[in-house]
């Protein structure tokens, strides 16, 4: 499994909002533990799909200079579950953005149905965790994200940290 929980951006307004999609498929091994005989996408991975959509939006707004990390889930509410064959639309919007942090709101839909509402806070860790040392390179934005951005026709820096 690769740690990428969005497939493509279908809308991207830098500094403001974005919409990404995620296909849920039987081919995803982890679904078969959750649950055996009735696979559904785990709620925590829906949160991660929002974190990646919103995180890229926040990163892009500041030219990916910062290491943008999920610091707080202000609120995540789920109204239904989703199954293989479903396509999720992840809508994210930047509410506030500052050198040290950003806050976003958003919702996940499937067809006409709202599946979840998720509000997050990101920390720009070089500016924040006083005393902690991090590697220089921006390891947060990997080559996987570059693939998603380029496939969506959005310019991406030449990432990432070589494996």
């Amino acid at each position: 499994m690769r740690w990428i929980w969005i497939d493509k951006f279908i809308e991207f307004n830098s500094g403001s909002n974005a919409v990404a999609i995620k296909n849920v498929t039987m081919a995803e091994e982890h679904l078969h533990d959750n649950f055996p005989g009735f696979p559904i996408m785990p709620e925590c991975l829906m949160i991660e799909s929002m974190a990646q959509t919103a995180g890229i939006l926040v990163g892009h707004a500041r030219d990916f200079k910062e290491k943008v990390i999920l610091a707080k889930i202000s609120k995540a509410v789920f109204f239904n579950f989703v199954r293989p064959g479903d396509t999720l639309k992840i809508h994210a919007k930047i509410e506030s953005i500052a050198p040290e942090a950003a806050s976003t709101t958003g919702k996940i839909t499937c067809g006409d149905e709202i599946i979840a509402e998720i509000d997050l806070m990101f920390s720009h860790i070089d500016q924040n965790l006083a005393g902690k040392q991090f590697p220089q390179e921006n390891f947060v934005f990997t080559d996987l994200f570059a693939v998603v951005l380029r496939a969506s026709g959005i310019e991406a820096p030449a990432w990432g940290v070589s494996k």
Partner: protein
Amino acid sequence: MAMTRDEIFKEVQGVLVDALGVDDDEVTPDATLMGDLGAESIDFLDIVFRMEKAFGIKIPREELFPAESLVSNKEFISNGKLTHQGIEELRKRMPHTDFTEFVDDPAVSKIGDLFTVDALVNFVEGKINA
């Protein structure tokens, strides 16, 4: 947009309930953000963002929480306590705060206690009714 102190308090209360997940009745005027309401570094940023939206004002983080840059300055700190200069500097940066109890034991570890709900309300009052 002039607001009464009561209106400001209600709004600040709402912000703290949302940002910290505490109940309405826990947000009393002398409740400390860190000690009583459990606020941490990321929460302070959350509070700043929400207050900016709620009151339509811009709040540079340094203005609301100026202690951070102060404590790294050797002129202001000695043996884990603020020097006389340090206290005066902090007073200047936080005119909305009550220092009466703090001066008795100006330990760095106690700076957090200065951030009370009341101090936040004073700060907003100063900003919007200026």
